[in-house]
């Protein structure tokens, strides 16, 4: 009870402070950044706010190996260019960031340059963190200074030529990096601006939900249009299309539940998004509502269900559909219902579930192969799980049942082939 109410207070406190800073103080923040007055020890309240903001930024996801000491670094991040290792960010002077100043930290967040002057690889989401205000950056830094120092050298990145040459990052930055703190849109509400600040900044949602091109860049024009997450074999749906994860026609409470509780009446988080809810969003209170307000307002590139050209030809899928409906009745209907309505909120609906009918079939195939538990969260500490079917159903059977689910009950997904299933099976099960 206590931590929860404390967090609620913090969240309430964070909203006006963050907005006030974003709205009125950017110039002042830049000038104070240059002063070198001796720093008093960080106040407990600042450290607490920093802890909350670090959770909002999900720093732990990359900077902590599961089960290891917090922020001791070295979690491997496989990329198409090689493997990166997130560094130790504990306050150890020799191996962590113990010798950094708050200015160093802000400059790193804001410009993507380390205090020694080298360019950071964009696996560190500085293209998003550049939106973070100086005050929030300082609070996060104060919190990072408060965790136990761990002496552990950060592993060298293991990148292929030519990506191991950091000077190439200059080109990448020219194309994809736009430096600058979040600028509020005065035509929108304070809550919308708070949501936009978090989604575009600390939340670094664009890292997955904006398509990544061959250079590992995500362009502004395609912001939040969705894309396959490199190396993870998950598709991050578009947040702007109501055919995908566009939230235009969702109730605000369903968006809040999805993000914060992990389950909702419209769908459940899974894959990499489950990690975001587990590490980050479950601990945020009113801020999740603000994010929901902003996400719901993102422009829809298409009206809902307005894509008949993409609808499958029934004749081509007739056999798979029949076979799939048989498998569905035997294996899936107990929980998801004969009509795909689910049992809310724990067994998600499949009928008219955007996640099922998206142009990429990667996610529904993987759900059937791997099953899954929604994350265990404060609001849903003992989630209900779905069994994996990889060991039970062959590629043809899974292709059939996914084809059925993607085309039944008014869903308009394209059929799925056994070959697609096989590729994901070998990539994600063995």
């Amino acid at each position: 009870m206590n931590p929860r109410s404390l967090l609620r207070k913090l969240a309430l406190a964070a909203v006006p402070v963050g907005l006030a800073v974003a709205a009125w103080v950017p110039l002042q923040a830049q000038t104070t950044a240059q002063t070198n007055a001796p720093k008093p020890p960080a106040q407990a309240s600042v450290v607490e706010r920093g802890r909350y903001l670090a959770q909002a930024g999900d720093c732990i996801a990359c900077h902590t190996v599961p089960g290891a000491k917090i922020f001791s670094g070295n979690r491997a991040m496989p990329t198409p260019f090689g493997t990166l290792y997130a560094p130790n960010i504990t306050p150890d002077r020799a191996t962590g960031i113990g010798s950094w100043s708050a200015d160093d930290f802000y400059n790193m967040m804001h410009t993507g340059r380390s205090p020694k002057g080298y360019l950071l690889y964009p696996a560190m989401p500085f293209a998003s963190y550049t939106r973070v205000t100086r005050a929030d950056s300082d609070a996060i830094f104060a919190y990072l200074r408060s965790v136990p120092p761990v002496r552990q050298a950060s592993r060298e990145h293991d990148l292929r030529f030519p990506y191991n040459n950091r000077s190439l990052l200059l080109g990448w930055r020219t194309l994809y990096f736009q430096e600058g703190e979040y600028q509020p849109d005065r035509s929108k509400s304070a809550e919308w601006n708070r949501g936009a600040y978090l989604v575009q900044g600390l939340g670094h949602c664009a890292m997955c939900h904006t398509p990544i091109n061959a250079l590992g860049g995500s362009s502004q024009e395609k912001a939040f249009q969705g894309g396959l997450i490199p190396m993870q074999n998950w598709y991050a749906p578009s947040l702007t299309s109501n055919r995908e994860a566009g939230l235009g026609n969702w109730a605000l409470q369903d968006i809040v539940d999805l993000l914060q509780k992990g389950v909702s009446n419209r769908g459940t988080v899974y894959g990499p998004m489950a990690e975001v809810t587990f590490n980050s969003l479950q601990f945020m209170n009113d801020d999740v509502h603000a994010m929901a307000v902003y996400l719901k307002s993102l422009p829809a590139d298409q009206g809902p269900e307005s894509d008949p050209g993409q609808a499958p030809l029934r004749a081509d899928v007739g056999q798979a559909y029949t076979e799939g409906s048989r498998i569905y009745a035997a294996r899936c209907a107990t929980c998801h219902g004969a009509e795909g309505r689910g049992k809310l909120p724990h067994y998600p609906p499949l009928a008219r579930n955007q996640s099922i009918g998206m142009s990429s079939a990667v996610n529904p195939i993987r759900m059937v192969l791997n099953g899954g538990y929604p994350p265990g969260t404060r609001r849903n500490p003992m989630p209900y799980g779905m069994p994996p079917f990889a060991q039970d159903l062959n590629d043809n059977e899974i292709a059939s049942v996914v084809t059925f689910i993607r085309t039944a009950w008014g869903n308009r997904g394209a059929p799925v082939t056994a070959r697609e299933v096989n590729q994901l099976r070998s990539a994600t099960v063995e």
Partner: protein
Amino acid sequence: MKIILGIIGFGSTLLAGSAHAQATAADRIPDTMEARIQACTGCHGAQGRGVENVYFPRLAGKPAGYLYNQLVAFRDGRRKYVPMNYLLAYLPDAYLMRMAEHFASLNPPPLVQPKVARSPDQVRAGQRIVTQGIAAKKIPACVTCHGTELGGREPGIPGLLGLRADYVSAQLGAWRFGVRTALAPDCMQFIASSLSEPEVAAVSAYLASLPVTAARPVRQPGLRLPLACGSQPQQGGQP
């Protein structure tokens, strides 16, 4: 528990007002562990009884501490098996403990397994190791820790009955190569990496040849183990 009931109640309230579906009695999900662990029983069998597939072991009746340690090890990647690592990735400790206690409390009749023909020499060699250990390699007898009847020991040591040879052999191999690890000090890592291939095969064959009895984990607080094991905390100092 009140919190859970509250959440479900809240969900149903929204549902009632939702245009998408009308709640009926059939739509209600039982607020039980049994309903929550359906993701497990698809592979491990109803009530965690075990299944035909050698690699999906029986969970029922194993000590809760042992099951909990395995769940945490899978979640954190200390024990590597991709489907389990994936399934448990975002589940909190308290819930994993509830799952462990649930399966520990069950005792469905064991699965009847087909007879496998084995070399009598190999089975005898395995019996020697299981009951006497290998003094020259400082390997204690399996029964010292896993119980005279091999039914396991509370709170953290599993029973070894009903496991098939391929599974036991795969686990010892995984320990040897660091794919399966237990809490430090990892006594089984020492044992598995000290055993030769033929010794592993003999132990596996002997264990698999034993009938599954009603043996349950023994409770013997204060017993000193021959090796220090992180998953079985010792009272009164380490040996």
